[in-house]
């Protein structure tokens, strides 16, 4: 999908706040409300915008710890990637599961109330996963999302 300068500005604005109306965006970028609406519609229908995401304050909601896990499947476990994916995706504390190529097979984002709660999730739910082999844990200290190459 090809975007011009105005499409990029609209996309960037919506990636920060998707609740902005076509009227408000139009005023900001010097377009009429209908013209802006058509561009937003095109971005959605062309697939540039694939949906919405709600960003919640995890800490304020009592989730003080986020840990990224790298998991290598054991030799035996490699026969059943699908089993692993299904079981791991069903764990509520596991927020994202990515299949990767490199030192690990999967990368997981896990939230927990505190380190003790994380330990419980790790021991009871992650280490018991079918085929899980080597596990590396890194505790998230800070996170920043960038606008990407549309600026």
């Amino acid at each position, binding site marked *: *999908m090809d975007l011009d300068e105005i499409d990029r500005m609209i996309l960037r604005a919506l990636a920060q706040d998707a609740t902005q109306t076509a009227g408000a965006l139009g005023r900001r970028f010097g377009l009429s409300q209908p013209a802006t609406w058509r561009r937003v519609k095109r971005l959605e229908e062309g697939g540039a915008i694939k949906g*919405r*995401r709600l960003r919640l304050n995890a800490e304020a909601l009592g989730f003080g710890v986020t840990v990224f896990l790298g998991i290598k499947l054991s030799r035996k476990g490699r026969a059943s990637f699908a089993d692993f994916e299904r079981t791991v995706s069903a764990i509520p504390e596991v927020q994202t599961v990515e299949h990767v190529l490199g030192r690990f097979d999967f990368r997981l984002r896990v939230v927990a109330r505190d380190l003790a709660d994380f330990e419980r999730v790790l021991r009871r739910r992650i280490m018991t996963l079918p085929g899980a082999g080597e596990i590396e844990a*890194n505790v998230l200290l800070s996170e*920043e999302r960038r606008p990407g190459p549309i600026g």
Partner: protein
Amino acid sequence: MIILDDVDRRILRHFQAEPALATADLAERAGVTAATCWRRLDRMRSEGVILAEEAVIDWSALGYTLEVSLRFTIDKDQPRAFDEFIAAAREVPEVLEIQTFLGLVDVRLSVIARDLRHYQEVYRERILTLPHIADVEALMHIARIKTDEVLPL
């Protein structure tokens, strides 16, 4: 920590599952009146429980077909090494996420590229030239299995 009641949690659970829902529809799913739902959302936004509602960009639809996780160890002999590395990483347009960690990995960058040739160019010219890198390791993304980033409320 902000104390939420059952109604708040119910609204958030449904809202997380379907972030594009209009307030009236969200109210119906959560079993509250539209006015209550609107008031609760308004309060949770102003208290900073709801940080943002963002449009999710599909970078592959824009021609960026590759995503790579680059895991860095930073040379910690320099006291400003972290700050300088992160400031320089912000200047690379293809960097989507910057995360710092406690563990074997110090910093992780999520980098997108149009194809392997473009990736090689970004990696050599923009990434390997970042300051204070002691070691770097790459994980190439193959598939996203779960992506919703929902909190288990």
